């Protein structure tokens, strides 16, 4: 196809170098394009709202970076680390009501808390408190789904920050369709009418599970409580990860676990030397998920080892009556209402047993 480039030479197809616009009614074409675009995009927005979606802030690397940068000005802040259980189950407003100060939410779904913990340990500004959620398989296997957020926050360019600001102010609060799970390609890819190819295992991606506020306060999407089919879909997606990943030998897994423990110990030591406090948290899980965790990552080998190796205290949901009795909706995350009650109970433990009450921080 002939094209105009910087090294354009006249040819049969284009004997004269020129960039005239095609002779058509461009104004009319633009109006038609604008009208059709607005109509089709509106239809797309209506479709997702009918599905139960509402506009929500995106759980983006840029949003994480905004919260992470707060630590420079809030050196003694309380920081929440961990994976999606800390992200969904710990509610910032309830925490602020009980303990007097809103924590900074830096938990990242599908990700070991270790990269973020090491990032805090390396930050001389931080001398506050951190609650570190441990999901045994994510920690032991060193899962790093959202690790890029931790690696890149210092390297954010001005254009990325500007893009994040525009997104959070002009798009995210208004459009329900603007959610990665609702993008066109993932939507098409998961339709049932694609022919299945024998011998090929198609992994189902984790679907949308949450809604998020401007400061990353996150709640489980209520569709999981109201829609039984969607809840069962979420459970079937978790079932995929209960089997060990292919190609990982027992020796490799043990080596990784040991490495995670040593890194955690080093990070916690560094933080405590600076006067920062670290408490680990094992949030509730249930059903087949809990059974898989207990089978593949028994408490004695993971949770107990973490506390022993790091020397930091921990709160395990099975050890406290006030943290038992919660039923995660899809085996792994609490409903919004339960998350409020869980946070209330958790804050009570932190205040009573660790002195994390307002203005009574241990020095």
């Amino acid at each position, binding site marked *: 196809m002939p094209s105009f480039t910087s090294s354009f030479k006249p040819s049969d197809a284009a004997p004269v170098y020129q960039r005239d616009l*095609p*002779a058509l009614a461009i104004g009319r074409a633009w109006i038609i394009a*604008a009208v059709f675009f607005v109509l089709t995009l509106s239809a797309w927005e209506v479709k997702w709202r009918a599905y139960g979606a509402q506009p929500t802030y995106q759980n983006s690397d840029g949003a994480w970076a905004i919260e992470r940068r707060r630590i420079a000005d809030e050196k003694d802040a309380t920081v929440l680390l961990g994976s999606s259980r800390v992200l969904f189950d710990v509610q910032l407003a309830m925490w602020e009501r009980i303990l007097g100060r809103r924590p900074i939410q830096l938990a990242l779904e599908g990700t070991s808390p270790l990269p973020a913990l090491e990032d805090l340990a390396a930050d001389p500004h931080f001398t506050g408190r951190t609650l570190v959620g441990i999901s045994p398989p994510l920690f032991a296997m060193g899962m790093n789904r959202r690790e890029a957020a931790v690696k890149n926050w210092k390297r954010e360019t001005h254009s990325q920050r500007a893009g994040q600001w525009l997104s959070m102010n002009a798009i995210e609060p208004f459009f329900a369709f603007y959610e990665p799970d609702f993008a066109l390609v993932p939507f098409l890819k998961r339709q049932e009418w694609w022919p299945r190819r024998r011998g090929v295992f198609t992994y189902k991606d984790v679907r949308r599970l949450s809604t998020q506020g401007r400061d990353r306060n996150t709640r489980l999407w209520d569709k999981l409580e109201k829609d039984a089919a969607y809840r069962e879909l979420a459970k079937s997606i978790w079932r995929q990860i209960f089997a060990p990943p292919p190609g990982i030998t027992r020796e490799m897994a043990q080596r990784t676990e040991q490495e995670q423990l040593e890194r955690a110990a080093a990070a916690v030591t560094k933080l405590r030397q600076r006067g920062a406090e670290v408490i680990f948290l094992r949030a509730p899980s249930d059903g087949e998920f809990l059974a898989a965790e207990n089978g593949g990552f028994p408490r004695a080998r993971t949770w107990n080892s973490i506390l022993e190796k790091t020397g930091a205290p921990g709160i395990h949901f099975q050890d406290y009556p006030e943290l038992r009795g919660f039923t995660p909706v899809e085996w792994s995350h609490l409903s919004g209402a339960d998350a409020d009650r869980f946070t209330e109970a958790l804050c009570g433990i932190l205040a009573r047993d660790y002195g994390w009450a307002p203005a009574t921080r241990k020095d």
Partner: protein
Amino acid sequence: MRDYLYIPLGGNRKGPTRTYINLMTTMLLGGLWHGAAWTFVVWGGLHGLYLCAERFLKARALGQLTFWRTLGGKITLALLTYFLVNLTWVFFRAQDFGTAWRMITSMLLINRGGAPVLSGYFLITAGATVLAMLLVHWRMRHQTLHEEVQRWPAFAVGTAWAAMLWLIVTTQGGGNAFIYFQF
């Protein structure tokens, strides 16, 4: 590469032997420019080899056959070019020659022992995209884009623009700039 390598080297103005050398040099350097790896050099070298082979055969009996000027001949050449370029992409993308060889033997159905990897979704969308690209390039081989668009009514142009805008917005792609902007 034509303006800043091939032509300064002499292009095709220094005799046939020097022309082949210039073609190979240009394409080998073009390969090496992409990265300090032998796979990139092989990628460039294959392109150079193809250009030399085309030049060599065009001047000889095989290249003079009237068949190449028929519709069937042109389609054959287009598909042959596409096939040969696809082989070079394996070297461009592979981390090492062992991986490249495994890919090529699988593509040519020599190595049949591997497990299937691509789902029905990928096979169909990749196949449809390739077919669409070949058809569009075939249709546009003797005309420019603005000559084609000029024939369309405003309604069709507007609808196409709306469709492209809708696809851009609903695909929600990342903000990755064109990779060559880094160079």
